[in-house]
Each structure stands twice: as C-alpha cells, then as structure tokens.
C-alpha cells in the first residue's frame, strides 16, 4: 500500500463512518482543490454515488469560473447541490469590495455568518433542480448535524490541532482548549441536540498528496490552478478581491507536482495568497473559533 493509498483508505473510512452515524449530513464544497478531492473520495467510498448534499457558501465574490465549474460538475456527477448566502450583507453592501467592511469583517459576514445560518437552516438554502438546471429554494430546513469539511492540518496553526470528528456547540463555536479524546479509530459520534460535529477526512493530507490524488484519479479542477501563459497560477482559491496568484510556470497537474517537489514553495505558506489570514494575526484562529472552515 502506498502512502497515498493509505491516506485515501483512511479518508474513505471516515466518510463512511460519517454517513452511517449522522442522519442529517452534508459536505462543504468550496470548489477548491481540497474539497474537490474529498468529493472524489466520496465517490470512491460510495461506489460512484454521493449520498449527501454538497453545500457551497456563495459569497458572490468568488472568481467567476468557480461557480460555472461548480454547476457543470454538479450536473455531470448528479450531485445534490445546495448553496447558501448572506443575502442581507450583500443587499446592504456590507462587504470589503464595497468598502464598508474590513477583510476580516467581510469574511465573518459572507462566510462565517452565512455558513452558520445555512447549516442551521435558519436562512434559505437553494438546491439544484436537475430537471430544469436551476436553483430552487430548498424545502429541507432541518439543521445539518454532521458537516464534512476538507481542512488539512498542515494548512495553518489552528487546523493542526483539529480532531477528525470535532464538536461545535450551539453557536457553532469551537472550544480548542477542551476537545474530546480521539484514539484507536473511534470518533465522537454522540452529541447533544442543537450541537453539531465537523468531520475532517483530509486532516492528514498535504498539498502534494492532494495533487497526487488529482493526478491518479484524473479529478477535474478549476483551471485557475494552472498557468495559462502569464506565468501565474492560483495555489489556493477564494474570493476574487482577497486572493492572489503565485508566480509559476506549471501548466499541468504533472508540472504542479514537480514544482511542489522541487521545494519551491516549501517556505511560503500555501494560503499566503489569502489576505484574511494576515489580518487574523496569523493562524485563522479567531475566524475558526467562530465557525469558519
């Protein structure tokens, strides 16, 4: 068994455990490479099916190709696609691009708040109707009790302390100081009503592992990850105003893997193109305690 196979099988085991233990389960799909790899693993775990909804928090400031790619893949793979948003903040233009919020405030409103209220079902959810190809208001307003998230422990400080099954309290808060024990492949699957569990199947993966899986399984990813001739590509994707590309000549998955193996980025954080991390005093911890992915 290769290292990559080892990671894949452990992640599949975790996905299956989540599917069995939670009645109202969903997977967050940010359209980025990590959660798309998770989606690919779910198809392996359930033999071509994805038996739970994929939830995307749409800030409406995503790089435009991302949403197009999302809907194309959702149709091709017959995904149960759901999105949520902070309609109020968007309406009132309480955003960073509109000049009415700092980057961090904007993240809190458009992502953390939207996520919290979409998961709890308090704000409208929109579900892809495969017949018409359009989104319709979802009639299911039940809170999700299990939420699968594609974070990796090597991304930044606070994520390195996560559990595979990590409880969130009624306010979506993460108590990093008092986490449950987790050992021998037994996870926290019992929880108080009103709370939910975040499930992290990719915790042990690195950026290189993610790309190696993409190559092995031929996973379609957003073209923004590749250099299209201008010597730049995105290493991590987010909202257009707060995400910048890195200098790179890598045009294909193979070239990205080669690039990572040379150690070119070994001393540069993968999320260095993500401005909100810098404003959070490093580590994303403040955002994450409040429920950010």
């Amino acid at each position, binding site marked *: 068994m290769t290292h990559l196979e080892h990671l894949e*099988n*452990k992640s599949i085991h975790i996905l299956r455990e989540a599917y069995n233990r939670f009645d109202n389960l969903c997977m967050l799909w940010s359209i980025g490479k990590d959660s798309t790899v998770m989606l690919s693993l779910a198809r392996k775990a359930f033999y071509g099916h994805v038996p739970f909804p994929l939830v995307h928090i749409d800030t409406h400031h995503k790089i435009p190709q991302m949403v197009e790619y999302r809907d194309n893949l959702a149709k091709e793979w017959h995904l149960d696609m759901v999105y949520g948003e902070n309609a109020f903040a968007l309406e009132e233009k309480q955003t960073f691009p509109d000049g009415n919020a700092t980057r961090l405030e904007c993240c809190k409103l458009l992502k953390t708040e939207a996520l919290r209220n979409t998961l709890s079902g308090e704000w409208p959810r929109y579900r892809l109707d495969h017949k018409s190809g359009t989104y319709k208001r979802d009639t299911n307003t039940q809170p999700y009790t299990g939420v699968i998230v594609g974070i990796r422990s090597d991304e930044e400080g*606070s994520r390195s302390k996560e559990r595979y099954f990590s409880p969130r309290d009624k306010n979506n808060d993460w108590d990093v100081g008092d986490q449950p024990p987790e*050992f021998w492949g037994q996870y*926290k699957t019992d929880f108080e009503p009103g709370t939910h569990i975040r499930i992290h199947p990719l915790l042990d993966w*690195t950026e*290189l592992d993610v790309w190696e899986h993409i190559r092995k399984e031929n996973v379609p990813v957003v073209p923004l990850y590749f250099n299209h001739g201008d010597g730049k590509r995105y290493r991590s994707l987010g909202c257009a105003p707060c995400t910048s590309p890195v200098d790179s000549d890598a045009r294909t998955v193979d070239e990205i893997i080669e690039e*990572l193996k040379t150690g070119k980025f*070994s001393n540069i954080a993968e999320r260095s193109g993500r401005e909100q991390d810098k404003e959070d005093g490093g580590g994303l911890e403040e955002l994450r305690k409040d429920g950010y992915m």
Partner: protein
Amino acid sequence: MDTCKTQNGFVGEAKEMNIVIVGHVDHGKSTVIGRLLADTGSLPEGKFDMVRELCRRNAKPFEYAFLLDALKDERAQGITIDTARCFFKSAKRKYIIIDAPGHIEFLKNMITGASRADAALLVIDANEGIKENSRRHGYMLSMLGIKQVAVLINKLDLIPEREREEKYKNIAAEYGKFLEQINLKPVCYIPISAFEGINIAETSEKLDWYNGPTVLEALDNFVEVLPAEDLPLRMWVQDVYKFTQQNDDRRIIAGTVSSGKLSAGDEVVFLPSGKKTTVKSIEGFREEPKTAVSAGYAAGFCMTEQIYVKRGELISIIGEESPLTGNKIKASVFWLGKEALSQDKKYKIKIGSAQVGCRLVEVEAALNAATLQNIQQSFVARHEVARCVFHLDRPLAFDLAGRFEDTVRFVIVDGYEIAGGGIITDTADDSRLNENLVRRDIKWIKSSIEVEEREKYYGQKSLMIILTGPKDTDKKNTARALEKFLIQKGKIAYYLGIGNLLYGVDADIKSVDSMNIVQERQEHIRRLGEVANLMLDAGNILIVTASELSGDELDTLRQIITTDNILTVWLGPTDNRIRDFEMYFDDTGEGTQEDLLLRIEEKLAQTED
C-alpha cells in the same frame, strides 16, 4: 503566523512516520522539537530570526520552544494544551512530530496525539528526575500499544560535568525498572541537552562517554508499523449500501479490513449473528477490478446469498481462527472522564463498528498509573487505570489482547463523551457456550422463508416474553392469562414453562432439587434457551416462566436466542438488587392482572413498529 512546515519540499516516495513526543510538563519536549526543526534545516525561512527578534524586543531569552507556539492560547499559558503537528525530514524520511501536552489536565490530548503515532520519544529532565507524568505517559504508551520508544534524558547541561554519566545511568535504570513492570522495553536511552543541541542531530565531546545513537539516528532506526496482513481476517461491517434510487442494485457490505486478506470466493461468517455467506465480488469504483483486499483497505463486497446483516458484526473466514463472542468481558481500562467510572451507571462500549450498552460489574484492581500503587475501590477515578469486568447488553464478537488490535481495543462512552479506553484481556463468559453457539449458527439449516417474509405472513414479529420473580408469585397463572389474551388479539402465542422441559428434554440431567443446584440449573436454563430459540425461529410469540432468574441467567438466554426481541418482566416485590428487567409489576400490591396485560400489549405495539 505560519506553522513549521516544509513537507512540500520533500523529494521522494518514502513513507512519512508519525512520532509522538511525551513526558512531564517542563521537561523540555518543545525545546527538543524546536532543536530538531532548526538543526535539520526544517524551519520556514525567516522564522528563526523572527522569533529571535520577538524575544529581543520583549527582553526574553530566546528559547527553541517558542518556535512551536502555533496557537495564541498556548502562547498565553506557556504550556502545550493540545497536540500540534510539526513536519521535518531527515535524509531517510519525512516525519510528523506530534507534540503532546505534559500537563495532567490534558492527558486526553496526550492520548489523542500518541494514538496517531508509530513510535514515541519520552523526555525526562535529568535535573528533576522521573516525575509523575514521566511514568503515567510511559504507562499510556504501553496501553495504547506503542512498542517503539526512545527515552531522552534531557537538560544534562544543568548537571555538573562529572555527575552527568552517573545521573544518566541512574535514571535509565530506575525508569527501565518501571517500564519492565508494564511490559515496555525502550529501544534506547539517550543523554541530551536540547538547549545546547547535544545528541539531537549531532554528538558532542561534552558527553563522550555515550556511544549510542543521537535522537535523529534513533528516529531513523524506528521501523514503519505495517498493516497486519499475516493475521486471520477481521473486518467490521461498517455499513450496507444499496443505492437503488440511483439505479444501482448491488448490495454492498462495506468495511475496512483490520487484518488478514479477503478474497472473492471466501466463505465468511458474521459474528455474533453466526450468519454465513460467500464473497461474490470485491467492489471498486474507477479502478482495476480486484479479486482480493488486504489489511488497511476500506473495502466493499457483494455476497452470493442475500442475507440480512447489520453494522457491528465482525467478518471472519470460515476455517481461519474464529473471534470469540460473548457478553461478559475482562479488560484493562484507563479512565479520562471527569466523573468516575462507576457501577451505578449505564455506559456504552464502542469496539470496531459495534456499539452496545454496558455495565461495570467489578473492579478487580485499580492502579495509580504514576506510582503503580494498588487502590482498593469499586470505581475508577479520572486518570486511573484498572482491571475491570463489564457485562454487555448483548453479545459482541471480539479477540483477546495479543495479536489483534481493532477487535481488542474499545472506548467507553459516558453520555455524549468518550471517557475511557480499554483492551479486552479475557472473556468472563462460559466460553464453551460461546463455541457451541458459533458452531450451532454456522451449521444452522436455513429456511428458504426469510424472517421478514414470515413476519409479514403471521402479522407479528417473534418475541420472547420472560416472566420471572420470587417463587411465591403466580407466574403460571399470569402466563396463561397472557397467552389467552394474545391469542384473542389474533396473535400466534405459546406458553412454555420450564416445567414442560424438566421431565422430557431435561430428563437425563434432572435430579431431585435440580433448579437449586447451580451447575444443573445453568444447563436447564441453556436448554430452555435452545428450545425457545427454535420456537422463536418459527415465528411465535413465546411466553416463558421461571423462578428468580438472575441477571446472569438472562444474559445467557439473550446470548442463546438469536432475536433481539426479548421482553423481561419481573413479577412481585423488588429491591435494589433487581435491576436487569425491562418491566416490573408487583401483583401483591395494587396492580391487577389486566393492567399488566395492557402494559405488555403496549410494549408489543412498540416492537411491531
């Protein structure tokens, strides 16, 4: 701030290794890691200078430990509260170093970190000597099953030069003696000064009396822990998939192979149900078709015969060594819960994919994990370890400690929280009964009528109602009334008293006072169970009476009977000792027989749902 990560820069395919670093608080774990990262050139660019500059501005002496403080919480408190992971590489391979907290408050985090590791570094401060958590962490490594441990005797720079060797030898000898008692043999004891960087990546003339490996060499000498392919097959049923709505008619048994190998054509048995089938195909998605899967694979297979099996059953191959089944286990446990593990409370055990309610019935020995001192008590307090006996609500399949892992190790859930862990060391059941039952279920001649089909035809689920209580309560009369009541409701019911068996089925073992002689009584109960099992298999609602059935005897019956539909009723006055029943009814008090019949009917309606 970025974490200490450089893994992206690694070239090559060697598998990475998880190492946990443990030890008493302030014995220098973080300094050891900081040194390892710095001395192997694994720190992100500018990080070292940044921390150094930060220290200078705050007029604090620079410490290697600061390099690790990834979280703000920890910076504030100055101690590691949760496991953090750091990445570095040697010439041989990549490492993930799991920094486990040394403070007793965070033992559960230490265990979380250690259970993810292939090997461990245990740090002891030469100046302070062996402390409480030096021992407790050693004990936990042993319980968690981590066999490769290097002990680092740190801070030798604080010891006068001429005393260092003696100090090192004394600590190694004393700690070695402790570890011997818990069956742990470290691969080496390394004298180090993390502060000065001695024997971390490089040796030093200052400790020229030491010829053993440096920490880095010891790490490179650890061997990868491989999945147990050579053992008999063990695979927990994690789920059963049928995605009919997506036009997929396959019925796939899904689970991760814990040990051994599963191949198409293998004849397998599911325990504890004893159902058997043959593996038709190993399933996959977008991959080369496989005919076999081995330990470590999250697999799935289809069966030649469509039998009904559930999550929590254990798959083994007929002809290979079989797991045990039973509902009484002896185990070594460690307890992390704020509230003690007690005999007055119900808990849940999770082993593999199975989970079952359980009760602690005996604490054979409780130990302080730091002193190995015996404590006389009937509970297990936080951070203690103990040898205990548990009774499970229904039988499980498992193995005994030794070669297997996933079928031996369990966690104990208290309310919503995992509050302890344990290793099954022995079965407290009559193992002969278990063996017989496994054989019986394997040899059972299966009807071509499915259980569900029969239920549909009879309009009822088979159910065993056990009426018991003190000798002088009128169980027979109640049973007759219940039988009549159920028949009138259109049910297929039958009353079987133990008296019906004693002079027939039991004639060969019946003595004058059979039911009062322990061993004979056990056999009478066993036969009652087997006869009842046949009648339940035939789809009946069966009413059984027997005097003063104990909790153990009920367990025996539950074990023999393959259906979970059992209703136990205690008739007569109760006291604290009587607590194993689903329904209590005191007909010597105010209740009438009619009340009881209505209550049973209500229960019946619930099971039919």
